[in-house]
């Protein structure tokens, strides 16, 4: 019998972390209720899943944990709609569902041996966290790693403890930035992501790839910077968002031209996007 692709795995909330000063972002750590489901949920950094709350519905959320972290999966969720609000009101121990993993992922095979520049903004840093953890756990498989990550204020940065730990390492170049701050002890950058990208991104070459994930406005202004720096459009990798329902290429909500963001994406190269309608 065919597996039912709409059926979520039952999970329990193990831990809830408030990530940002506005308390609108929380990270949920889930463990699978049924033995064996974790193996079935084998995923790659860049994929997403549908978080399912009985009586409320489902939301597509990028997987924030890395496959190298075992025993749990993590998602960081912004409170915007019906399901995310219900999720924010849930408690440790509550039972809900996860359906996935869904979509494609960052092209890890192609990135093998290459330099990787991670560029992220705001709360779209979740699959980028997954990617960083994954690359650090397989450090010898990649060249230089740069991370340019910005938020409005220091208190709006996600995963602050981990950012500090990565700062302390010498095998990853962190370029953390905020739009502005009046914290006299702020020791990192101040400026928008495109500006910091222009200042800190390594020189473009065939072996250097940029992975961009962030709000549309950040992408809009970062892409010309990378263009000017000589990054080829095959070397610029982006993760898209669109309204989704099924997550498996059936319901057709998220189409961009003939492609589904949920199934053919969410990861596309800029070269691919150049030939597609800008309907995202």
């Amino acid at each position: 019998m065919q597996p039912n692709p709409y059926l979520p795995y039952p999970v329990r909330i193990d831990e809830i972390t408030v990530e940002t000063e506005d308390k609108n972002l929380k990270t949920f750590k889930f463990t699978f209720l049924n033995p064996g489901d974790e193996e079935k949920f084998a995923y790659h950094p860049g994929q997403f899943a549908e978080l399912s709350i009985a009586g409320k519905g489902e939301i597509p959320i990028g997987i924030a944990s890395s496959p190298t972290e075992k025993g749990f999966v993590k998602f960081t969720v912004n409170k915007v709609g019906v399901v995310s609000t219900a999720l924010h009101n849930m408690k440790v121990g509550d039972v809900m569902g996860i359906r996935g993993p869904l979509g494609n992922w960052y092209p890890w095979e192609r990135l093998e041996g290459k330099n990787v520049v991670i560029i992220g903004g705001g709360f779209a840093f979740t699959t980028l966290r997954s990617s960083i953890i994954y690359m650090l756990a397989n450090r010898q498989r990649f060249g230089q790693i740069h991370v340019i990550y910005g938020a409005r204020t220091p208190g709006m940065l996600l995963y602050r403890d981990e950012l500090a730990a990565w700062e302390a390492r010498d095998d990853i170049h962190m370029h953390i930035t905020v739009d502005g701050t009046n914290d006299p002890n702020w020791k990192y950058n101040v400026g928008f992501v495109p500006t910091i990208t222009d200042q800190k991104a390594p020189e473009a070459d065939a072996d250097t790839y940029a992975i961009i994930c962030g709000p549309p406005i950040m992408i809009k202004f970062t892409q010309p910077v990378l263009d000017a720096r000589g990054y080829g459009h095959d070397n610029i990798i982006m993760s898209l968002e669109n309204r989704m329902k099924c997550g498996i290429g059936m319901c057709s909500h998220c189409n961009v031209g003939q492609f589904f963001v949920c199934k053919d994406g969410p990861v596309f190269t800029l070269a691919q996007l150049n030939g597609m309608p800008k309907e995202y």
Partner: protein
Amino acid sequence: MKYIRIDKAQWAQGLAAAEKAYRLFGPVREGAMLNFAALAPGQAPDLDGLNTRMSARSVVYPQSEILFEYTVDPNDPDGNVLKEAPAPAKPAAAVGIRPCDAYSFLLVRRNFDAPDVKDVYWLRNYEATTFIGLACDHPGSTCFCTSAGCGPYSEQGLDVLLQDAGDAYLAKILTDKGAAFLAAAGWFTEAPADSEGCFSAGKEAAEAKITSTVETDRLAEIPQMALYDANFWEDIAFSCINCGTCTYLCPTCWCFDIQDEVRGKHGIRERNWDSCMFPLFTLHGSGHNPRGQKVQRVRQRFMHKLKYYVDKYGDGIQCVGCGRCIQYCPVNIDIRKVCQLMNRFGQDAACKVA
């Protein structure tokens, strides 16, 4: 090929027998309109009309379909855990489905039966349905099936094709599933030897009556983005009121929404047809809408049917030529004209609809 003769005097009795093993669907008169719906016990399908207002889509893919059931009772050990809704106990038979509607399921199947992921609900319903088609001897003025991949005697997607032969139906058995249905109905009378001739003569006569066509020969070769950026979309879209008529009446539209509903402690997750004509269809949580304007949504519908589908599957348009969207669009947006504009893109100097 085997042919059976079903005397019309034995029609009701046969259906009554088939009803024991099948859930029967067919054209039924609802007020002034013919609809494709479940037949009540003993109800005969109304085979006199042209085509039904709604297509036969809902036999396989109901407008609202429960996917899961659950309890939200926190004290229940299974609380908040989803359980798959049971499949219907009996198989279904679509009696008197027109060839265009039967063919539509083959086009839609490409979406729901992808190589790597299967929509188990659609597939189980489809596989549990026997399609007893009725050939169209009197196609309508907006029928353009012959240029949309099928035709009034098309056998694609059918298990049996019936031809109205006055006091009897001639049944051409196309599959084992079809033979099983006729056996369940108790129809075994071997048809006269010239039945094949009756079908080919009927086919020729019916196809000759089709006056409406679409041109599709250039759709595949025109670059996608050139059509997307074409100058005719504003003119096509102006009159559109963004209702769901075209998409809901269309046999080949498949978009859906998923919703949870709870009453007391009992909850369901169901899917409902949705429409790319509605602004809500693409609205992001942030308020951003990639297809916030009417012209973008109208373009999406036609591009999907006549270009994205063509490019994705490489086997024609996502349209069977039933003409429903033309007949019932409140403002007379006509897919034949749009298809012509698209197909002739870059050839006609003036790309005007009127």
